[in-house]
């Protein structure tokens, strides 16, 4: 009964959408990279760097949207590093990706200490505030859940639509998808596989960093160590769950977020008296693994994912 009450409450769904937002950005980013044929395991570190960069920019006096732009730019720089090593040089995407994660994380913590050597608790910024969309936010249940979010969340949903349109309705999207399916086909049509793949990784990394920035600029209002806390790895799974399609990936992100929002609330019900709270903490992950097992059987992996392409090689 208590669970049904939770599921029918607007605050639960509002929380789910809020928790889903950073995952949506980063999942889209990873999806773009993988659609072009590059696995980007730098995602976790790039999210950390984005979280810090956006927050730091705002803390040092820029506007919120400039902060988002700063985060994206920092992400794109790490994307440039990742794609330079993996695309023209053809290095192992696993090793480079994990290396970028380690580098981005450590560089961020280092930058934090350089910028704020004395503080014990990190300063707060004026984060994005909820913005009610007129009329729509008055719809019962749906209104407060979907249309009383911050503009940063709205941007996540808009981005899903934009990425979907670009991937499936434009020559650019076609070229990106083809680069992930058979780069030789792209080269044979006179296009540069290197440029397309690098471009996709750079843009994708920018989106990942925006996912990180959401944490410090919309979900919370400050930067903590460990605050990304594995969300990047979840996004890699969400790409698989979404079968490399933006719409399905959005669904997966919301589903995972709903599990997460649910477990927090279930901990406060009578159920929690008998069950250790760690079980609830595990729940979203266990349910995600189950969903992943069920969904990924029909998933359409890009055929050339993780296959380097060298022009002129036999």
């Amino acid at each position, binding site marked *: 009964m208590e669970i049904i009450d939770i599921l029918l409450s607007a605050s639960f769904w509002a929380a789910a959408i809020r928790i889903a937002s950073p995952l949506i950005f980063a999942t889209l980013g990873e999806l773009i990279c993988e659609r072009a044929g590059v696995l980007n395991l730098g995602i976790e570190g790039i999210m950390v760097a984005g979280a810090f960069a956006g927050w730091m920019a705002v803390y040092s006096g820029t506007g919120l949207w400039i902060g988002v732009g700063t985060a994206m730019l920092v992400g794109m720089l790490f994307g440039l590093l990742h794609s330079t090593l993996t695309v023209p040089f053809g290095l192992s995407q696993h090793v480079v990706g994990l290396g970028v994660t380690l580098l981005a994380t450590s560089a961020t913590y280092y930058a934090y200490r350089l910028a704020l050597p004395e503080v014990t608790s990190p300063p707060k910024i004026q984060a994005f505030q909820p913005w009610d969309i007129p009329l729509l936010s008055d719809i019962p249940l749906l209104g407060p859940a979907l249309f009383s979010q911050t503009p940063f969340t709205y941007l996540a949903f808009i981005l899903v639509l934009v990425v979907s349109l670009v991937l499936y*309705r434009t020559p*650019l999207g076609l070229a990106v998808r083809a680069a992930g399916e058979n780069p*030789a086909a*792209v080269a044979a049509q*006179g296009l540069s596989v290197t440029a397309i793949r690098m471009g996709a990784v750079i843009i994708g990394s920018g989106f990942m960093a925006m996912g990180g920035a959401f944490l410090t600029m919309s979900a919370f209002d400050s930067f903590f160590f460990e605050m990304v806390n594995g969300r990047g790895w979840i996004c890699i799974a969400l790409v698989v769950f979404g079968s490399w399609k933006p719409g399905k990936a959005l669904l997966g992100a919301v589903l995972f977020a709903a599990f997460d929002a649910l477990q927090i609330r279930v901990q406060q019900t009578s159920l929690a008296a008998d069950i250790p709270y760690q079980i609830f903490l595990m729940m979203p992950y266990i349910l995600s693994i189950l969903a992943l097992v069920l969904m990924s059987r029909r998933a359409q992996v890009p055929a050339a994912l993780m296959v380097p392409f060298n022009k002129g090689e036999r």
Partner: protein
Amino acid sequence: MDHDAPTVLCLDAITKRFGKLVANDAISFSLRKGEVVALLGENGAGKTTLMNILFGQYTADSGSVEVFGNPLPPGNSRAALDAGVGMVHQHFTLADNMSVLENIILGTRSLFVPRLDINAARDRIKELSETFQLAISPDEKVGNLTVGERQRVEILKALYRDVRILILDEPTAVLTPQETNDLFATLKQAIANGLSIIFISHKLHEVMAISDRVVVLRHGKLVGSVNTTDTNKQALAAMMMGANATPPNIAPATTGAPLLVLENVSTPNIGTAPGLKSISLALKAGQIIGLAGVSGNGQAPLADIVGGVHFPHTGTISLNGKTIQKWTPREAVKNGIARIPEDRHKTGTVSDFDLTENAILERYVGAPFSKGGWLNWRKSRLFAKDIIAKYDVRCPGPDTPIRLLSGGNMQKLILGRVLEADPKIVLANQPVRGLDIGAVNYVHSQLLAARDRGAAILLISEDLDEIIALSDIIHVIADGQLSPAFLRNQMSPAELGIWMSGQGFDTGVAHAS
């Protein structure tokens, strides 16, 4: 062909080196409007390299290309396409998970225009496919197409871009005879529409059938350029091979005892592929039995049974007079059955393993290549070196990954691997598919030598000429049924062709002696 037609393409002194290898040595030739030039040469003669230079996938070390009188910038596929040069690669460059339409329009518009004009593209593809007799449905996924249909997509990709010069690299290597005829019809249509064609091949009869002029390459050098009407197959073969290209002599067979006998063997159908329908067959020492037939008519299950991969559901197999109870690949190898598999890349070799590892792949358990569970690399390497020397495998050494070898050299290693074990029975499944004439003759002479040593050989091939040339006994397989045994020279190719089409079996003589 109009001999005064303007020149559309001119290659001037193209030279390309890969390390020490000179792949193209100062090659010059030209192509006129409406002309089909066949580029003939063995594998490794430099044909594909030359065309990849023309199409901008390699950069020549020296020399230049002119298209319609304008120099073509080197190393730029886009420039080649824009100048009206299109290429149908031997290994298709298609994305399987995308539709025909998406594959065709990829890269045809600037990447930064806001939308794909799918409907206009679909109309144009339909129009082109009608004009050029290239039946295709634009919205089908490429992954669902047959090999012949994929090739049509490749050709449409070029035509969609309004190319004026079409390069086809070994286009018939993957086609059935019927599909080849369709392709030729399309090419004639293209010529009628004012295109010019370069047709790369090493199949002489196709070159004779389709081309106006033949340019022959050998070891990277241009060795001849002749009008097709002024030459014949023998002359072309001699030009292509250099030293004369005679097939091996065949001594009469001295047939011995039956070694492997199949009696009333049947297997279930797998999907649309027919299983065997109560087949009886005896492989006898010193005899080559040729199995003719269109691929997919039961050759695979039969090869699997002889090779030890499957044990038949009904019927019996006996080896040297004893009925077999247990039958696995290892049993087959232990009992002296040598297997030359149909697909040397997928089932014949492990491509990232080196030559040594591939050489001992079937026999690494026990002496001489291992002892007490430890591999004996020294002996294994010696064995590989032995094969390399004896079977003339051209390679840098026994430590080379086998994927770097050409098909012919890979097949020579497989041949050495199985024949050095002195087999009693040889299962040769499509042993010369994709090989050039030199390698074909070599493989055939080795099979004949094995026969003369007293081995029983089952030769499975789609190439009727090969079956007729080598076999002492010919069976035709069609829809899982086996024809009676025909002796050498008993049947003409046309008569065998009738059996291959499935006629003749219903007269109740399906069981061979």
